[in-house]
């Protein structure tokens, strides 16, 4: 924890960046300026730590690991930040940091220790599968294994799915190649997260603009738009979709004339 304390002290030395500074640094980073990259990372470390801190309340998760992963997420964000899209860096980086932190949490979750009885059941299921295929020459279905072990198929399915071993993305993609020069799984599996994150942020930005637009609508405009888009659950609901006082007065005046 003393390492962490010194990290916190170190991080506190770097001032937060203004939007203009962010854009200027991002432009320099694009041109390969390493110092700008370092400054962008250092100035946003507080964000990475604050996100890691939020997730650290989960039992069994190590805070140091979270800070490490959130920093990796931050570095990815710095390397991929496109200042032309107009996002504030912290908004963009938050997605990457959270994704990195969630990944490590999922990995830790997959190493949950099963009770001894469950472990034994998983072992028996694997054993039964091997023996079945040796005897009959075909792989047994899950229902057949469940029948052999006299257990519920659904429960067995859940256990088998959960107990699948995980592979590191850093492991070599080809078994026979030299470990140092071989491409890793991370190199050969196509990533989609860049596109997903950008799309998600565009959608979120569009949704925020709509929310702001909605807040400027009169009640009558909102009611009509909701009806037009099929969003009004009850067109008779005047509590949630009332008309404005001005509109009501105009209507009453019109009614009185008639």
């Amino acid at each position: 924890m003393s390492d962490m304390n010194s990290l916190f002290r170190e991080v506190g030395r770097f001032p937060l960046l203004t939007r203009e500074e962010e854009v200027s640094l991002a432009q320099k980073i694009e041109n390969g300026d390493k110092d700008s990259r370092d400054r962008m990372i250092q100035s946003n470390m507080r964000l990475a730590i604050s996100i890691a801190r939020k997730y650290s309340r989960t039992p069994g998760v190590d805070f140091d690991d979270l800070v490490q992963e959130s920093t990796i997420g931050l570095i990815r964000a710095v390397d991929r930040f496109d200042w032309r899209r107009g996002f504030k860096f912290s908004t963009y980086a938050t997605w990457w940091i959270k994704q990195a932190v969630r990944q490590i949490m999922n990995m830790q979750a997959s190493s949950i220790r099963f009770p001894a009885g469950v472990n034994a059941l998983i072992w028996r299921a694997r054993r039964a599968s091997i023996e079945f295929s040796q005897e009959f020459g075909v792989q047994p279905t899950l229902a057949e294994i469940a029948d052999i072990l006299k257990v519920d198929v659904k429960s067995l399915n859940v256990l088998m799915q959960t107990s699948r071993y995980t592979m590191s993305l850093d492991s070599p993609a080809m078994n026979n190649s030299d470990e140092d020069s071989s491409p890793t799984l991370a190199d050969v599996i196509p990533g989609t997260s860049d596109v997903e994150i950008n799309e998600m942020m565009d959608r979120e930005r569009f949704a925020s603009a709509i929310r702001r637009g909605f807040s400027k609508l009169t009640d009558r405009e909102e009611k009509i738009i909701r009806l037009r888009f099929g969003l009004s659950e009850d067109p008779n609901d005047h509590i949630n979709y009332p008309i404005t006082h001005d509109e009501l007065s105009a209507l009453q005046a019109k009614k009185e004339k008639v």
Partner: protein
Amino acid sequence: MNSETFQHGYATSANLGGAGYVEIANRLAADGDPISMSSVRNFYLSGLRKIAHEVCLTQGVDKREICETVDKMVFDPRFQESISSTLNSMSMGDL
């Protein structure tokens, strides 16, 4: 699509998922709020203009061009469909 219909805001997109102007006018009238079909259209377009204005600001449209862009956007069925789809996502809690 008839260009005249399109430019006057009567373009109806099959994918909006809600009611037409006549149906909305009838519903409001049944609720004691008599309104003509063209007024429904006017309220609808004025509401869409406000939303489109915010979208333009978000997209960094030049302030001198916003009015013209907003007018083009609100009459465009594709914009109306994207609003509809986003609103539905929002109402389902996806956004």
